[in-house]
């Protein structure tokens, strides 16, 4: 009984310690981000000329201004949130409360596509496949979704929305399936092929949407027509069009639940994980490695496609040319940060979504370029991928991980 208790305790402790490394990675990256802000701020140098104390004070002030703007931009101003809430409770007027919630809604809006893209890469990682092609799958899915979204008319939303989402899934799945098939059949490494297909997708989308292209709007702008009313994803606050937060977020959570169920509760998921761990053993156990690889890449592509679908049906309403999203690389960071677990991906996406939403406010209020988030994201990847750096910085003990995750092998291996 007591023995059982201690193992449970130890297990809980090790769970906290698995969380400790990512948390410290994030904190360290933010600290280094603060260093970048301070060393590029001329007012800090001026203050240091007046004296060390003044300089230090100014540095702290600069960091505080930038990061509080980041926080407010991501989660809202606590004072306004409290006032809005009390006004809503006392008078029943919810407008101030909704306005105060706007930053949080933006965070969730940015989180939505990140969850899909992160899940896409995470699923690939579990299957031993490195899908760098989320960006390309996003482009193709954007084209298929928006086409179904604007070309079909007279449908009720209950049919039109699922159709448009399905089109996105299919577009992304096809774009993911091709490198999967090539990997399984010819051994051509999926990393190279997905990168190549990113650029092919990019050029193809450019061709389709270019002025005079097959999907261009026809008014001289390189954008697609606007989707039908019936293809829109429902917004949570239709009365306030500024709030772009929409049903897509719920879909993203459902997708995460689906990936969890698929990976850990089904035979297919077991096969995906086995092929990812050891393709030779999988083959020996009678699994079809080829089929599993193709299937994994197709599902992964479909998930990346949903990122585009929810962006277009929920937020953009049309597809612009040169739609570079940067989700492809973000997604890799998310999958790593979330340890390729659907729940971890959600948490990681919330963090990145908050960074992206907050960075816009930080740029406007504190004049810190929003590219800072990219620096922070790059550092997070480095620290997550090389936990030894974090452990030696904070003198943490190494933890034995139960399941070693094979991210991908070299070019030559299959």
């Amino acid at each position, binding site marked *: 009984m007591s023995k059982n208790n201690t193992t449970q305790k130890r297990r809980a402790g090790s769970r906290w310690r698995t969380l400790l490394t990512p948390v410290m990675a994030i904190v360290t990256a933010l600290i280094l981000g603060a260093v970048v802000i301070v060393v590029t701020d001329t007012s800090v140098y001026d203050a240091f000329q007046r004296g060390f104390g003044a300089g230090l004070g100014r540095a702290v002030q600069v960091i505080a201004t930038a990061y509080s703007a980041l926080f407010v931009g991501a989660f809202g101003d606590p004072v306004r949130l409290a006032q809005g809430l009390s006004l809503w409770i006392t008078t029943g007027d919810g407008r101030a409360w909704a306005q105060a919630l706007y930053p949080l809604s933006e965070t969730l809006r940015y989180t939505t596509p990140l969850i899909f893209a992160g899940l896409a890469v995470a699923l690939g990682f579990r299957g031993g496949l490195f899908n760098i092609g989320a960006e390309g799958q996003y482009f193709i899915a954007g084209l298929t979704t928006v086409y179904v979204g604007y070309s079909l008319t007279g449908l009720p939303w209950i049919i039109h929305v699922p159709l448009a989402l399905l089109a996105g899934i299919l577009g992304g799945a096809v774009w993911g399936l091709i490198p999967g098939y090539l990997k399984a059949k010819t051994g051509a490494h999926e990393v190279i092929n997905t990168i190549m297909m990113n650029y092919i997708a990019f*050029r*193809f989308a450019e061709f389709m949407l270019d002025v005079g292209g097959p999907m261009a709007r026809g008014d001289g702008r390189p954008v697609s027509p606007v989707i039908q009313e019936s293809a829109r994803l429902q917004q949570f606050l239709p009365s306030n069009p500024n709030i772009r937060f929409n049903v897509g977020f719920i879909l993203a959570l459902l997708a995460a639940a689906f990936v969890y169920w698929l990976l850990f509760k089904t035979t297919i998921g077991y096969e995906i994980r086995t092929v990812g761990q050891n393709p030779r053993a999988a083959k020996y156990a009678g699994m079809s490695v080829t089929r599993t690889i193709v299937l994994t890449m197709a599902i992964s592509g479909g998930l990346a496609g949903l990122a585009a679908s929810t962006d277009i049906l929920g937020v953009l309403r049309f597809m612009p040319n040169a739609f570079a999203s940067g989700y492809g690389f973000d997604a890799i*960071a998310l999958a790593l940060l979330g340890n390729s677990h659907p729940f971890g991906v959600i948490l990681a996406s919330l963090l990145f979504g908050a960074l992206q939403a907050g960075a816009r406010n930080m740029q406007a209020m504190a004049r810190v370029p929003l*590219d*800072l988030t*990219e620096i922070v994201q790059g550092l997070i990847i480095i620290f997550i*991928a090389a936990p030894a750096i974090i452990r030696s910085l904070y003198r943490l003990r190494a933890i034995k991980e139960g399941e070693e995750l094979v991210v991908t092998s*070299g070019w030559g291996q299959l």
Partner: protein
Amino acid sequence: MNDNLKNTHQARTLGIAFLVFATLMLILFLPGTTGNQRTTFAFDLDLSPALPIGSLTFSTQGGIFLLAVVAVFLGAWQLAKGFKRVYPILGLVVAMFVVAFLTWAARDRSMNMTGMLQSTLLRAVPITLAALCGVMCERCAVINIGIEGMMLSGAFVSALVGSLSRSVWIGLIAALLAGGVMGALLAVLAIRYKVNQIVAGTAINILATGLTSYFSSRYLQAIPDLNKPPTFRAIALPGLSRLPILGPVLFTTTVPVYLMLLLVIVIYVMLFYTRWGLRTRAVGEHPKAADTLGVNVFMTRYVNVILGGMVAGLGGAYLVLSSVARFDELMTAGRGFIGLAAMIFGKWNPIGAFGASLIFGFADSLQTNLAILRVPIPSQFLLMTPYLVTMIVLAGVVGRANPPAADGLPYEKQ
């Protein structure tokens, strides 16, 4: 036996492919022409020191017909007797197809072939340097996905330091150092911390994008004088620059281009004819054996990856100091990834990589030329060709691309 069968099968397929190319020349390019149309290929450039050789004018239909007949002959020979080395012939037939296409495109007009070759070479420079960086790294088994980020760092630093020092040379050296620092980061992550190399490369891309964009919007955009670097002027080599065609293309150009040409040769010779090259290749193919024989695997990898990063930095400096004279955010625009493709297409060989880069550069320059000739082919499809060709090569349809055996695997000393 089986191998032999496969060979005869492939030989027949290639013979038929030659005939298909011949037929395509006739069906695609003949119908739109009339008997009295003439095509002019010019060879002299204005303001060039080269000896003038005039231009070549011929009947459009006659030219296309002649090329098709030669292709038919080659195809028939291949089917009947077979060429000993068939891949050069395949290259010749593809080249003839391109010439037939140009003959058709330039009907009733004049096309300057020397100008086209010149722009092909110039567009190939950053791609070649990226590919050489890839060759340096992957020959010792370190996969480098971060070439793009290394180039971007080189470009940014060369613009900033070049503007500050008003010297192209100091700008160039700074770019080499910046590329080297990024290379060192990849080396430390991949070798010391044994981070998955694709993850490390991705982190470098994100970090470099973030850093260069951040500093660019903080400094280069705020203070325009910081983004006005001087540029290299073309130097005509005495004697050689007087050669027709080759003179203006190869021997009347800027220092980074000469450096690139030199590097192709130097890296080739170093890799295949020196002790360092033998060690590098041994480390890439079988690090354990190399270690047993007393080669320092870690040191070899560090040196190669850092030098590779410097080559990529030179590629970035070329973009700034030899062409546009300013830094723009994300100005490398995927050239690092095309370089990766060129490296694979060139089978991890410096000369091959240069050849592949020339083909990719040609596709790029053709695209602008066709716009001038008003040929109704969407430029996007031409820009897709490098990626498509790479996927085809990688899938083993034309020849097999075999990476170094240990590529991507961290080395653990026992």
